[in-house]
């Protein structure tokens, strides 16, 4: 991980790109006040796994299309329509997985073409802030911010959990 602080504007780009890639609101990934600083943690960890150069290239690719709709950005950078995503798209996949699950999985090109090889849980905070649990309208197993009996009722909407749905979609 980085030892010198990454400039705020770079982390902002990283967070905004990640928001588009993950489908969550950027204010969830990088709130106005961010004491947890997941984007700093994740940026540094990803760089340590794929190189600064590769991260820079990905961010530049993002910046070139940053004004496009979020879903377009996601589909473009992840090359979701392609049966053979590029290395850069695979890095984007690993970044999505890191935000969702709190763990880093090797891009397939680093694992003889086989995706899904886990490296490690990035940190305890990474686990407890995983986005997949919000996508499930739940909470990380082992970390409930809710109170007794909440499970008896349906949860709040997917939008409330931070997914960037246009009109309160989801369940």
């Amino acid at each position, binding site marked *: 991980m980085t030892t010198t*602080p990454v400039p*705020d504007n770079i*982390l902002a780009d990283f967070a905004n790109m990640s928001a588009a890639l993950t489908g969550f*609101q950027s*204010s*969830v990934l990088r*709130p*106005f*006040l*961010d*004491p*947890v*600083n997941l984007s700093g943690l994740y940026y540094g960890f990803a760089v340590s796994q794929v190189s600064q150069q590769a991260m820079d290239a990905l961010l530049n690719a993002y910046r070139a299309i940053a004004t496009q709709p979020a879903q377009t950005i996601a589909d473009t950078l992840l090359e979701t329509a392609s049966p053979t995503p590029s290395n850069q798209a695979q890095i984007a996949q690993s970044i999505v997985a890191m935000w969702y699950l709190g763990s880093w999985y090797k891009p397939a090109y680093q694992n003889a073409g086989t995706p899904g090889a886990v490296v490690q849980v990035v940190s*305890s*905070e990474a686990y*407890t802030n995983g986005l997949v649990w919000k996508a499930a309208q739940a909470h990380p197993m*082992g*970390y409930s*911010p*809710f*109170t*007794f*009996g909440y499970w008896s009722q349906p949860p*709040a909407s997917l939008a*409330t*959990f*931070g997914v960037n749905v246009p009109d309160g979609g989801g369940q």
Partner: protein
Amino acid sequence: MRKLATITLLALAFACRKELPKTAATETPAPAQEAKLTAAPSGPAIVLSSAIPGDAQFGALPPNATNEEKLLAIQGDFDIFSWNSFIALNWPPGPDGNGDPTKTIGQDGDNDTVWEHYRDVADVFLPGGKPPVWKGSTPVPPECTADYAPGMRILSQVGKTPTVLTEFSQPFNTGPLIDQNGVYTRYEILVNKPMFDYILSNSLYSKAGQKVFSGTVKFPCGVLGGAEGAIMVKSAWKIIDSSEMSRFHSEEVLVYSPASDNPPYPAKCGKQTMGLVGLHIGHKTNSGAQWLWSTFEHVDNVPTEDDVKGGTLKASYNYYNPKCSAADCPPNQVPPRPWDPTKVSSFHSQIVRINTFKGNEFAPTSAAERNADAVKLLAGVNPDSVWQNYELISTMWPTNTGTCQAIAGDPLGTPAPTFLANTTAETYIQGMVPNVSSNCIECHNNATMTTPVASDFTYVLQRAQ
């Protein structure tokens, strides 16, 4: 959602700075006090005032501030709030219980305080669920009558528990804090009038009343320049001798240990001079829907990890023996059971402050700065003021919250700093493990009444009988 909070907080941050609340102190300042006002016109500051702040006051954010800079600035505003709260709560009270405008904190070295006239929870949650009164006598246990003089306080808690000893809301095996003389640290929990009134008017002082309560528990929020809001204070005390009194806020109290079945020991009571070693203030405010948590410690409590590593140790501490090696006195160990507060213990707690601010360096940076300001101010009243011997560890505040209301989707409000512990009260859960290490808001979020209904971040309601 979050957007709303951002606007709210920004509005507070960039709004024209409000006037200092008009208090009796500023209208007719005592001569010594007038010279000590350091409120700069451009931002909030620590002041010698008996006015309890209803909420934090926010200065302007630096332009184009980075995340760190924003956090440092706002943390600073909350730390100023904490110090202003500490000063006002420790102000000498007048006959009505409010801070006496004709006096100044520490002018005579030590003084009686406003918060010590708040209502002890033992007098709020009475046997049989009887309705409490704000001002009234405390029942004196038979073992204490010999030493009792009217007005004396009775300290009985040896943990944050309603009964004697053992875990309370702490996750696991937390234990008592035992000083260098083998004596147990004692605790008190008190609530201010607005908190008391809410409990009384909603009949939450009894199990029966809690059972029929059908609403949502929501204590009143403090407002800047307005309503005080609910305040709860937790104090930690250790027995001191007369030679130490100059360094502590101290009181002569009755230390009472109710009889216990397991571990088995009879009741015991005795008069002691106790020194304040820790002060927790929980304050529900508009900007603190999850409450604002200000925690103070006596400066001689414990060394930090760095102090121990670097050998920069004081000659003595309240809860650490600098002459005992790590091998002989491994730090931060829970005393072995059984825990019997009526006896002098051969085990002395060897406590070190763990750095729980890694990645949140804005918190200790801000606290250090504010502590320096406050000490200067307090020592300026009287170089013998006991109050200069207390330091703010930090203030925990929710970064993402609405006005007096949590934001749906973020019940905890994403607190800053992410972990905070007072070595006298969260001694054994100093760390950085989510959901377990000390985090005021996270832990208090689990608080309920005697029924499993959420109790708005306070455990006091669990004491109802």
